[in-house]
């Protein structure tokens, strides 16, 4: 078990040990058989050290422990801005940048979609509603694509905002102007995603709310003469919350993986550009580190969601099995 990857690792270990032994002047006096014996002994030692003498299933648990405790090992080629090779440090150095940009964007998108969608579902057929429906196909173009246009307009033509990057060069020294500079650099990427994805978000939410507001219990509430706001909150919003929350939490988690192309277009130093350079340089530890964290976050979220569903929608709890 362990497959070809094991062979690669063993090969690498053997190569590095034999190089080290043959280049070491202290072993010059040894003859060929002695050298080989020495290499083999050191090789066996090294395998034992990294746990390759144990079966794959034992090692799997060791890997699992490493992953859970976020001991993600060392990168092959990439190093952090501070010069560290630790995958954990490399990732945590980039993470705040991505969270700042994309989590903000996702939050904005979510709330715009939710409130405008709710608003439009109440004004079905109005001019605003038709406009939203008409603009929905705009979302077939991705965010980075609008990014190019926005750079063209605001950076190149109007020269109002920077082309890309995260902060002015050289970075401002006091924290207030630093924050302002970051904000200035964030505007275009955030705007590009808002232009790209808010209309489809609004459209989907609106259609969704429309479907739910034609349910019998909503009609009943209306017949009872409950005020509009109560109907909205208790009869429409609440039963539709589980899928909305699912959407929201999944996109929040996905947002921390950044967006490779948007980050490249805007030259944003986040996880997306890290993913890109790691993939191009075949820096497996970094890639595996990122994917593993993502997988765990995903699993935890999906599990938490199951509980949240039951709290939000009483019907799910009563359904039992």
């Amino acid at each position: 078990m362990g497959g070809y990857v094991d062979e690669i690792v063993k090969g690498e270990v053997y190569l590095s040990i034999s190089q080290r032994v043959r280049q070491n002047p202290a072993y010059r006096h040894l003859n060929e058989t002695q050298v080989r014996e020495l290499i083999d002994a050191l090789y066996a030692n090294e395998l034992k050290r990294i746990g390759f003498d144990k079966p794959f299933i034992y090692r799997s648990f060791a890997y699992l422990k490493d992953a859970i405790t976020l001991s993600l090992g060392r990168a092959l080629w990439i190093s952090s801005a501070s010069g560290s090779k630790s995958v954990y440090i490399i990732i945590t150095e980039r993470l705040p940048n991505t969270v700042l940009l994309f989590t903000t964007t996702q939050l904005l998108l979510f709330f715009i979609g939710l409130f405008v969608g709710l608003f439009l579902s109440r004004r079905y057929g109005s001019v605003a509603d038709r406009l939203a429906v008409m603009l929905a196909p705009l979302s077939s173009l991705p965010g980075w694509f609008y990014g190019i246009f926005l750079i063209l307009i605001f950076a190149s033509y109007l020269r109002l905002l920077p082309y890309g990057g995260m902060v002015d060069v050289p970075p401002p020294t006091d924290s207030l102007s630093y924050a302002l500079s970051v904000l200035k650099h964030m505007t275009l990427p955030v705007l590009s995603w808002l232009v790209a994805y808010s209309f489809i978000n609004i459209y989907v939410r609106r259609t969704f709310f429309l479907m739910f507001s034609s349910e019998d219990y909503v009609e009943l509430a209306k017949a009872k003469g409950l005020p509009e706001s109560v109907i909205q909150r208790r009869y429409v919003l609440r039963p539709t919350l589980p899928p909305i929350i699912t959407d929201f939490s999944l996109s929040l988690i996905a947002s921390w993986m950044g967006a490779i192309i948007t980050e490249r277009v805007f030259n944003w130093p986040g996880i997306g550009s890290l993913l890109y350079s790691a993939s191009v340089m075949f820096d497996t530890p970094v890639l595996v580190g990122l994917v593993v964290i993502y997988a765990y976050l995903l699993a935890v979220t999906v599990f938490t969601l199951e509980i949240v569903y039951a709290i939000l929608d009483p019907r799910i709890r009563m359904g039992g099995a």
Partner: protein
Amino acid sequence: MASRAKRFFEQLLFYRSAAIGLAIILVLVGISVYAIFAIPYDEAVRLWRAGEQHWLNNPRNALPSWVNIFSSKKLPETIILDTSEPRPGVSKAIVPVLGRFSQIRIEFSFDYQYDDFPSELNLFFKSRFNASAPQLTVHWAKPNGEEYVLNTMIISREDKYYISNDDRLARELRGLISAKVNRTIEYDAPVTLLLFAEEDASILNPSTAKVMKGTYRLWIEGMAFETNVDVDARLIVYGKVYGWAGTDHLRRDIGIALLWGTPIALSFGVVASVSIALIQMFIGAISAWFLGRVDTVLQRLTEVFMVLPFLPVVIMISTFYKINIWILLLVVIGLTAFGSGVKNYRAMFLQIKEFPYVEAARAYGAGSFRIIVRYLIPKVLPTIIPSMVLSVPDFVFLEAALAILGLGDPLAPTWGKIIDDAFTYGALYKGLYYWVLEPSVLLAITSLSFAMLGFALDKIFNPRLKEA
């Protein structure tokens, strides 16, 4: 009554957007067919990869010609004068003198009526001689009669003189003209400006410098110390507009990539979205029909693929193998075959499986394969057509995105490639907007047409949306 009219109107609107979308798609298909027949693929790749030598007659980073129609300021077209293709304004005379020498005189004259300076000025020579290379002097005359000696040189059999890159000449002209206007030209005026500008106070500032309109002359006088001599010269006054699409930093005609990008984008998008939808549906059907162990294996596989980050894996594969676009298409299909769609289709098939007509089919002894292909899939197929159409743009943009990451097909001319080139060579910094806008607009039109069609189809095939 009013509401019925309103509904009818709405439906008409839906159909109209579908009609517009469909019309655009048909036009794009027409362009693709034209591209395939007009420029065969190998020819397109050869042209696109030919390098700068092949495109030497084109200006660099030129705007498309049609900008002249919309602008009051006429940008120059490229003027090519060649002594091997005689025409008015081109003359060549090589006269033997005393049976031992040859006297050479070549003259070009051309009318320049544009409002902007040319981008470059080059002179190419082709000559034939035995031992003694001809020595030539290049002269320049402005419409008002001012004359300058540009250079004196001894040419080899294939030679060139990049007039606009001649720094010595630029310095010399700056000095001469400064003397004439009695003020020093402070800025680093290029040769093209100095040779084409009015020589008055306006030349002192690059923004006020005016083109002197009229007939320019360039003549070459020379001598060779043998009689068996022939010299051909080609003068290229590079303009600032070219063709219907302009040129890029390598003087290539962007039109070729725009044309060929169309069939590539369409086929990539359509093949990927259709085959992925069909494969996912098939996997979903198998999973739902057989349940048990087959289901478990397929579902776990799907979950594994769902966690794998798609783009990084594609990036790794294409960096590692430098694959062409069609293999890339296969990789994309392979990686998405077990996507989240499988879960949706499985859920649909689980419901359909219990329908009486499926039970009837089972009762008359239909095999599993027959039921899946003839009973389950046809039931779901119409409902997925809209999403199939809607996902075409995703894959069209995927190709562009990979090109922007520098991972597209190394040979094929595609829209994404142009955007990537434009981005890499600073089109946005230099204000060469056409370079980015042309492929982007095409990409946008393509995606929007599929999106419009898809949204309309969605309403037609899933009437619940319409009622809501």
